[in-house]
Each structure stands twice: as C-alpha cells, then as structure tokens.
C-alpha cells in the first residue's frame, strides 16, 4: 500500500507540543534545505559514492518522518537500504515525491 503524501495530524501534534510558530519555522527550514539535500543525493549517485548516497537518503527519510510525510519517508528508506540505484527512475520518483510533499507542506503552513 502506498502511504499518503502527508498525515496532517503529525504537523498538528508538532504545533501543539512545540508551538505553532516553531512548527511553521521548522517546515520552512525543511523547504529551504530540501533542494540541497536532493542535490547531495543525486551528486552522490552520479559519483558512485555509496556512503554519501545512503547518508543523504537517510537525512531525507528522517525529516519526512518528522512531518508525517509517509510516502517520501518510505521512498527514502528504500533508497537508504537499497544502495546506489540502477538507472534514473528511482531518483525521478523521489524528486516527484519531494515536489508533491513540499507543495502539501507549503499549503499546510499557509492555511
């Protein structure tokens, strides 16, 4: 079963326990950092740097879990455990999932 892009209850709980302003700031930080994290991941894949690739996938997974971004978390975990991918399809899928996740998170903080 494919996980939902975003579980809004996770962000709601984050706002409750950490404060609304902080939760929004955290999402903004994630949105700012994501392009760099994706670039690190694709660069590592291009260079054949297995460790760097695993670390970048791990970082994306860890952040996705913070915000309840289940689909992105699952994909990133798959890459973390699977090692360097064959072909570009897995990376394209990840980029698309990052894009929809970022859109959903952006909408959430502007609600």
């Amino acid at each position, binding site marked *: 079963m494919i996980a939902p892009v975003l579980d809004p209850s996770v962000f709601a709980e984050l706002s409750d326990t950490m404060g609304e302003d902080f939760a929004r700031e955290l999402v903004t930080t994630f949105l700012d*950092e994501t392009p760099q994290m994706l670039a690190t991941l694709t660069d590592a894949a291009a260079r054949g740097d297995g460790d760097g690739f695993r670390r970048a996938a791990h970082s994306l997974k860890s952040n996705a879990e913070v915000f309840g971004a289940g689909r992105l978390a699952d994909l990133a975990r798959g890459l973390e455990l699977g090692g360097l991918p064959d072909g570009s399809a897995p990376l394209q899928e990840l980029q698309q999932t990052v894009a929809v996740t970022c859109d959903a998170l952006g909408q959430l903080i502007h609600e």
Partner: protein
Amino acid sequence: MNDITGHLLIVDDNKVNRLLMSRSVELLGHKASVAENGKIAMEMLSSNSFDILLLDIEMPEMDGFEVLEALKANPHLRDLPVIVTSSVEGLDNIVRCIELGAEDYIPKPVNKILLNARVSSCLEKKRLHDEQKRLLNRFATAEVAQDLQESGFSIGGKRLTATVLFCDIRDFTSISESMSPEATIELLNMYYTLMFDAVSSQGGIISLMVGDGLMAIFGAPKAIENPAQSAVSAAQDMRNMTALLNEESALSGQPQLKIGFGIATGEVVAGYAGTQDRAIYTCIGKTVNLAARLEAYTKVAGVDVLLDEETRKHLADPDACTVIPSVDLKGFSKALNVYAL
C-alpha cells in the same frame, strides 16, 4: 520543567533535526548547544563542559560510531552520558551503539516524553557519578582517584622504583600535652594542609597519616620524571613553610614545630593493600623501611632531612649534601652512608 537541569550538546548534520532537538531540550528546561558533525562535537567537548550528548549516527566527517569510540578512549570524556537519537536502520546498528558505551537509544522522530525521561535519568546518574568522584577525591589523593578510575580497584601490587618520604613532628606528644585537644587538632590540621600542599605540588601522594607522622610516595601510582628530586623539593618546601608558621606562632606564644624528614629511593611494591571493602594505596619494601629509619635517625644526627645514597645521586646538586658516613640503622645488616640536606 525539570528539577535538575543540564547543558546538552546535540550532534546532528541535519538542520531540521538540530532545530527540533534544540527546541525539545529547551522546552524541557535544559540548555542546548549544537554541533553539525562528530568532528565539531569533539572539538566542543575538549573546550566546554556538557552534561549529556545527544548523538546522531549518520553524519559526514565523523559519524556517531566514531564519536562513541573517541569518547571511550578519552579518560576525561568516557563517563559523559550519550543518548543516541537516530533513525538508523537495523538492530545491529543500535546494538553497536550500546556496545560502544551509549547510555540509551531513542528513535527519531524523538518522542518528547521519552526524551524527558531519558535525559532526567542520565542527569541523575551523572549527578551521582560526579558525587562519587568528589568523595573519592576527598578520601584519596587525585592521583589515586585517577588510577582507580582508569584501572579499577584490585588488591595487589607491582614492583617499581619510587621515592618514599617519612616525616613527623619532633616531640609532638610533649608539645600537645601543654595544649587543649582542640588546639592540638588545629595544629595538626595546619601541618597536614602544609604537608599535603608541599607533597602534591611536587607530584607525590600522601599514603599514610598516623598521628603526626606522614608517609608520602613519589613516582607511584603515576610515574614522575625525577621522584628523588621531587621528594627532596617537597621536604625543602615543607621546611620553608614550617619556618613561616613558626614565625607566626612565636608572635602568639604558640609552640614551635620542628619536623624531621627521611627520604629513600629504590624498588618498592606499590598497590592497594587491605581488603575488598577497605584498602589504601601504599607501598612496602626495604626502601620504605630505610626512609622510616632515616627519619628516626634525624633526631640522633641532629639534622632536619636525611637522604639515602640513591636519592642523593638523582639530585640536581648532589654535592650540596653533607655525608654522614657508616651509619648503623636497625634492620640493615651493613652500615650505610647517609646524607644531610
């Protein structure tokens, strides 16, 4: 908020995680500092004091496993409690963290209630450990306390070369007879303070205190460059301090202290002697007997400090000593040349 608050170092290469952990820690009432990887964390740990380390595993430059290994190898940092906060995959990785000395493992995203419980428990453990260390330092010298922390406690000794110093206050019994018990204890405490300072500032340890007599060891448990010279310097410092103390005592009509020192260098057996429940760090052997006999002989020879040949040989200026030839000391079959300082 917590009763016990601490300063936590959060080590994580991910900015979102660092912000989240800092916020969580601060909301619990603690102070948070952050490091972006293990290398930066180790630099911060070398110059600042922290109560707990919250450590991520997957990091560039120096990962969490390497940090745990470095902490374990560092006597100053190996007691620092580490809570691993990571979303690292695989049970074997979590087991490895614990085996490398991590206190606990909390999966990410970190649950605030769980974090609070773990941090409070670690701070309490650290408080008890620090208290234990303080007590150990109060009842053992810093060197013995360090030796115990590094090597653990076991009854038994090892052979090594050291210098042994004996000293006592001349005619203390008759001095104390003219004083109140309170004044006697005060005088003894003053004497102990001066002697401890003189011995420890020269790298020695006080091994025994019996009434007004003290036995100090130089070169064990920690080796020092020139134990003989250190012991003699300690005796000289002590002699100078006693002279100052006597000047003050003369003004208030207090009795004058005269102290005799016997110093010998050679092989000793040093270690923990006693039982599993109560033991002291001490050393025994012919060198110890010789130092005690030399101290006793200062009264006969009418000098303050007596050294054996081995101690004199290692002094920066051996010719400054005056030889007293062919002295018969109890327990020694041959007559010995001894030296007055």
